[in-house]
């Protein structure tokens, strides 16, 4: 067995384990962390395919940003596991059918002529071949219109997400930063001139009194 084959099986085993643990873990935070492990293993598999750009971007985007926000939300939620399990068995047939449908779809795609091993280009890449550069060149020449379209859709998504969650209340107070920055000392501080010592009230003290 070649060394890369060995690495493939190790990463594949970790990936399958992590994916299974993601859906079986009782604690949602554990599940999210197992999903992170699954992303890492998937990135390792892509590295084996010499797709280093995709592998690193998978970690950067999904592990570094998406899953962090996911964890952020999951940790804040107070999830009642008993309620989640409620009616598990009545939902199982529907869920199982959808799962089978997805397996069938993926089988159809993967057995098609474009994804078979023969259709993939040979592994031998010329000296100095840069995966990143090739991908960039393709994206900005041949596929520039789909790429721009996708970015516009993303932009629409961003704006829509902000608009949906933006609730302005009348009694919310915001700092006016420009005013805060423009503030002068005289508006905040008042210097008062006063004597360092207060003169003691004149007492009629009688020397040697008591």
């Amino acid at each position: 067995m070649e060394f890369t084959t060995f690495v493939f099986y190790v990463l594949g085993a970790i990936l399958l384990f992590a994916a299974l643990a993601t859906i079986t873990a009782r604690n949602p935070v554990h599940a999210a962390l197992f999903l992170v492990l699954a992303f890492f293993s998937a990135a390792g598999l892509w590295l084996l395919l010499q797709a280093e750009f995709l592998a690193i971007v998978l970690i950067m985007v999904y592990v570094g940003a998406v899953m962090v926000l996911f964890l952020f939300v999951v940790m804040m939620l107070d999830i009642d596991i008993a309620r989640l399990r409620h009616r598990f068995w009545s939902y199982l047939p529907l869920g199982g059918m959808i799962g089978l449908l997805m397996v069938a779809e993926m089988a159809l795609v993967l057995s098609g002529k474009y994804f078979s091993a023969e259709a993939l280009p040979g592994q031998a890449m010329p000296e100095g071949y840069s995966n990143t550069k090739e991908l960039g060149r393709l994206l900005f020449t041949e596929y520039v219109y789909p790429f721009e379209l996708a970015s516009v859709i993303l932009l629409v998504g961003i704006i829509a997400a902000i608009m949906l969650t933006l609730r302005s209340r009348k009694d919310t107070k915001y700092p006016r930063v420009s005013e805060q920055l423009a503030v002068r000392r005289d508006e905040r501080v008042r210097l008062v001139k006063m004597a360092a010592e207060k003169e003691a009230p004149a007492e009629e003290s009688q020397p040697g009194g008591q």
Partner: protein
Amino acid sequence: MEAAILNFFQWFWNLFGLWDAIWSWFQPLWPLVWALLRIVAILVPLILGIAWLPYFERKVIAYMHVRIGPNRVGPAGFLQPIADGLKLLFKEIIVPAKANKRLYLLGPILAIAPALVAWAVVPFAEGFVLADIDAGMLFILATTSIGIYGIIVSGWASNSKYPFLGAMRASAQMISYEIAMGMALITVLMVSNSLNLSDIVRAQEEGRFARMGLDFLSWNFLPLLPMFLVYFISGVAETNRAPFDVVEGESEIVAGHMIEYSGMAFALFFLAEYGNMILVSFLASIFFLGGWLSPVGFLPDGHLWLAAKVSFLLFCFLWFRATFPRYRYDQIMRLGWKVFVPLAFVWILVVGLWMMSPFNIWQ
């Protein structure tokens, strides 16, 4: 380098006449051993640097406060890190009863591991780099973005209020500044036409000023000055250092995510923080200050220049801490999202137009 070490081994074992026997079974293992040797050669100085950086921090800040600082252990307190390290080693690691034990212990490991992994692609001098990969900058961005898991996981697993608040603050702050950081690096990538860190340094070697012998004027920091500032300030925010240290703000949430940790588990967070400081200083030197290049034409290039630049940037970290009051949380968010991100977007556009115009200085 590799051949010299192999020759040394050959000479050594030939003294006993054993070289051929050893090499016959050792040869397949050699690439692994060689990689391990190089990793050790990077990590040992790094760990020593991490150990003594807090000492210099305490000294520098002390002198800025007109105090003396640590002065009991060794001459001028120079052995203080050893005393601190020993103390932390002998302390008990306490696991809170209600903590999620596995994740609680995983947290510090998740914090330190990415801080060390990123060094794989950092070049120290021409050819002195562990992994000279083409996607080096991407690798750096990816590894630094996972450092946040250590903070979030430990904050959540501690099962206590202050660590959780620290974790929430950390996830919001670090994600915000990662965007500004990545955007600033896009301009570097544009002008150097490569993601490889060594190539980025080499790209700063050329230019009109470099031909006049004033190499330091052709480094990236001058044409990309706003991006240099954005990168370095984001780096300070990303490492959760003062004035952006609300994640562990001692006066508000009493050290945030690490409040429940003791002994070496706490020390790992500390090591990760200082390791990240050194990493950010190295990266800023490589991306913007010409890496190992010498500032003037008549002096030779070398790793000492890189060390000098890194030392200066590290001093800036300590200087900031002694000088600036802590930012308010909304001010941090405003600086990240409303100042740095738009500035970086505009500067990407400016650099793009600049490179297309006849005034292009990078060709």
